[in-house]
């Protein structure tokens, strides 16, 4: 088990470097760079800048230097935010995204799991159909439509919560609900399907046959197997939380990492883009590893050698 974890942890490093390399390649393929903006620089200044950032050197020298710095976890300074290092920017903005992201995922788990379990237990009931139709609706409303509609109703018409800005718990409510909707919907569908499959399996029949109470059968036996699809969904979910948070951060004016990431791509702020991509890809891979490890606890049939 320990060997498995170590092996996977070590693989993350070359994988992340590969992702950074490909991202760098993608950025370099796109014509122009940070300095080829709307305002044309005087040739002398452009020459100086080109020299300062080593843009006059051949690409493999630039690439080598960049990778060498990245291996030492130094992503350099942002081009747009002069004098601020990429690491600084990431650590400043990540907590906002992490807060709404984690709260949203917890809310989604709470709603999705309970709705999914009840729907599976009362299959083909009104609750089953109702919650699954609601889940499908959650999957079908773009979050940049849902967010503003919630703002319209709860901020502009009812005056219950502030429409935007960061500060206080009340300002978190709408962004978290907006972000959670689609994940709650996915989780409800996955839980229902997983539970239905498990409830038909032999080991549940055995558990019932040996006289365990229905509560023990459900909570101790069925749930563990039934939520495996939800656990595997968590990896990709956290990955797509990035794209999700971009919208929510834009709609609710939250200074999170997603917004900074999109801006950095539009600004051609290469060090910042690469830093965020590296950070997120490592984060995603660590989460995927955690997911794989938790399978072993959930399903006794899965063992890692």
């Amino acid at each position: 088990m320990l060997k498995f974890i170590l092996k996977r942890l070590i693989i993350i490093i070359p994988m992340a470097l590969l992702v950074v390399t490909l991202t760098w390649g993608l950025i370099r393929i796109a014509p122009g760079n940070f300095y080829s903006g709307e305002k044309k620089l005087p040739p002398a200044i452009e020459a100086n800048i080109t020299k300062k950032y080593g843009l006059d050197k051949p690409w493999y020298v630039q690439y080598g230097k960049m990778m060498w710095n990245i291996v030492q976890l130094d992503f350099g300074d942002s081009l747009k935010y002069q004098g601020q290092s990429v690491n600084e920017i990431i650590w400043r903005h990540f907590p906002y995204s992490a807060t709404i992201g984690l709260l949203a995922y917890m809310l989604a788990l709470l709603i999705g799991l309970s709705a999914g379990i009840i729907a599976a237990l009362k299959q083909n009931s009104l609750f089953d159909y109702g919650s699954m139709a609601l889940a499908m609706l959650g999957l079908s409303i773009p979050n940049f439509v849902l967010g503003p509609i919630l703002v319209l109703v709860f901020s502009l018409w009812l005056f219950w919560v502030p429409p935007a800005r960061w500060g206080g718990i009340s300002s978190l409510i709408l962004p978290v609900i907006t972000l959670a909707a689609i994940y709650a919907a996915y989780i409800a569908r996955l839980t229902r399907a997983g539970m239905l499959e498990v409830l038909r399996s032999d080991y549940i029949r055995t558990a019932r046959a040996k006289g365990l109470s229905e509560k023990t059968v459900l909570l101790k036996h069925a749930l563990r197997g039934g939520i495996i699809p939800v656990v595997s969904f968590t990896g990709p979910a956290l990955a797509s939380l990035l794209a999700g948070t971009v919208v929510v951060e834009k709609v609710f004016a939250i200074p999170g990492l997603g917004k900074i990431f999109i801006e950095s791509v539009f600004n051609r702020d290469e060090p910042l883009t690469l830093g965020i991509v590296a950070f997120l890809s490592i984060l995603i891979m660590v989460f995927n590893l955690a997911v794989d490890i938790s399978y072993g606890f959930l399903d006794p049939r899965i063992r890692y050698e």
Partner: protein
Amino acid sequence: MADEKDIVKGTSLWKDAWQRLLKNKLAVFGLIVMVIMVIAVTIGPPILRWATGLTPYDIPADADYIKAFPPSWQHPMGTDDAGRDLLARVLQGGRISLMVGVISTFVSLIVGVSYGATAGYLGGKIDNVMMRIVDIIYAIPYILIVIVLLFVFSGENTPNWIDAISSSFGGGAGLNQIFLLFFSLGLVSWLTMARVVRGQVLSLKNQEFVLAARATGVSTFNIIFKHLVPNTLGPVIVYATLTIPSVMLTEAFLSFLGIGVQAPYASWGSLASEGIKNIALFPWQLIFPGVTMALTLFSLNFLGDGLRDALDPQTRKF
């Protein structure tokens, strides 16, 4: 000789699936909504033009200084900032949104199916390398890939063939951008399709019909594309139906960020994101395009779910 009517008629896979689909009320609902939606966006704009004398891009003469009118009999969905009928804009936008969904899915289908089938059939090291490439592309935020593709190929760098296709529809920078979107979105949505097809091919490639084909000297290319690919059609159709709404969502997201469909063209996503700016004053500008889009995605998702249950009873979600 048996009488014609005594012969038991076998049902084909497709007939069987069709009947199962018709039993699924929600899928039938989705199918009906989609048929209506397709008809509406096809014949709606010309009819509205005939009734009002305006294209979705024209600004009416009576729209004076207050240009955004709330919903009324004359404008069932109200008007946008410039006084244009929102119903006409939504129908016109629906053409582009649905086309983005279908064409991008088709692009992803071609790439994903050929990639997955090749990896699965060749197997071994080649398969391993090809699938690791898929894993790595998965790890790069797709939004970055789309933005780079749009950056690289927009303006002067538009490939000639995209230019050629778009000029046969009228041409111009706006149309070029739309065609570019079709291909860029297709090129980021093939990954899961490749995995699905590879899995199918892995389970098919050791069956007798493939061995027979190989024994009779059929080329590898023909085994993959003439023998294996047709047999993966069921899951491919199911997955493609579910790709359409997800591509449409991505397009809406890009339009929301301002890099999707550009004015004067519109999609549901770009209309909704224009509506967000005026949400406090003219909420109908967000609500109508948003609800139309949500209804369409809702129906497509139900249809996709129904197709999965119908075509692939084994993976049926009970």
